[in-house]
């Protein structure tokens, strides 16, 4: 897992109160949201993640298609945030 992906995972776990996640065991390509998510995140969590990402990094996810694509996995989220935030 890349350092920035780890940073995002920690932010997600803090935001959504996922206390018992073994971060080192999370696959960066595993689904982030939905029944197959190792975090057990659902659509309400997805909403909070999207708003937190916007607040912390200034990157919007405001179309359903964007959210769907971006929140596929930790890897896709990291890539989207990294390429859209002001460096």
């Amino acid at each position, binding site marked *: 897992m890349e350092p920035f992906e780890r940073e995002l995972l920690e932010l997600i776990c803090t935001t959504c*109160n996922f206390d018992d996640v073994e971060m080192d065991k999370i696959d960066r390509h595993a689904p982030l949201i939905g029944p197959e998510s190792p975090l057990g995140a659902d*659509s309400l*969590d997805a909403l*909070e993640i999207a708003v937190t990402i916007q607040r912390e990094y200034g990157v919007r996810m405001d*179309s359903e*298609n964007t959210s769907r694509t971006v929140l596929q996995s930790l890897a896709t989220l990291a890539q989207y945030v990294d390429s859209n935030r002001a460096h």
Partner: protein
Amino acid sequence: MRPGPLPDFSHTQSAHCESGVAASLLRHKGIEISEAMAFGIGGGLFFGYLPFIRLNGLPLVTYRSAAGHILKRISRIPGISMHQQKFRDKSQAMAALDDALAHSIPVGLQTGVYWLPYFPSALRFHFNAHNLVVYGKEGDEYLISDPVFPGPVRCPGEDLARARFASGALAPKGKMYYLTRVPENLERRSLIVKGIRSVCKMMLGSPFPLIGVKGIRFLANRLERWPDRLGKENAALHVGHVVRMQEEIGTGGGGFRFMYAAFLQESGVVLEDQSLADYAALLTQAGDSWRQFAVIAARICKNRARPEDTYTVMAESIRQCASLEENFFRELEGWVKKQS
């Protein structure tokens, strides 16, 4: 009847099924149009809080116009003709679908989501106004462009027939539709102005207190009293339902406000009018405010509320949305008046 050659139908994933299908059918006929533009000229934005209509025991809250409204407005555009048909009999309905496919015509269908087997079971719910396009048939399987999926899907005939005749609220009654004629070009200026005018009228001018900006304030007042009236658990169920209708069910987020902002932005480019882009920014602010409410609501629903997350704060947040939208629609109404 044997299916005809498969039309070269291009699948595009969209946020909302009705505007997505409308845009796909128009594009197939050679009219280049985005989902946001179809949503805007179809007058798709709305707000209504209708507690006397219940969905799974919860009050109806809607952020978009009634099911079928967008397609109806698009079918009335000068130069566009749309064939629409409903059925009483399943086999007649499927035969009519096969007949259209035999002529290589992509067909829009209204269906019940619950009966479509390609939906993951977690996402199946009893919603009978889901639109999709059938563009071919192989054996007993129909080839479907379902706008909420990333790629084309397949569905056995028996399941599709059941989905077309789902019973309950908004029963599709086998409804099918397809475009028979389109103009060479859409005269976008008048369509944009008419679409915006109709939305402004509903949001500001409705005499009913449950509709438009008044309806948003009505929801705020009701929601504030939910914990006392319904109890903590039931209040959380109600608020979760409001958020799901706002952020899911193909809204594009912010209760369709972001999608409408995209429409205004695109319209600003088409009409070379910067003010529309400025209005889009105002509506995006309103969409963000809806999301702020939704985040508090989500924390309450997930039992991770912070001390400051209360129903009073949520109600205030919704009143803030109402004020932002009132200001936005007044400005937009002024713009419409200047166009005539």
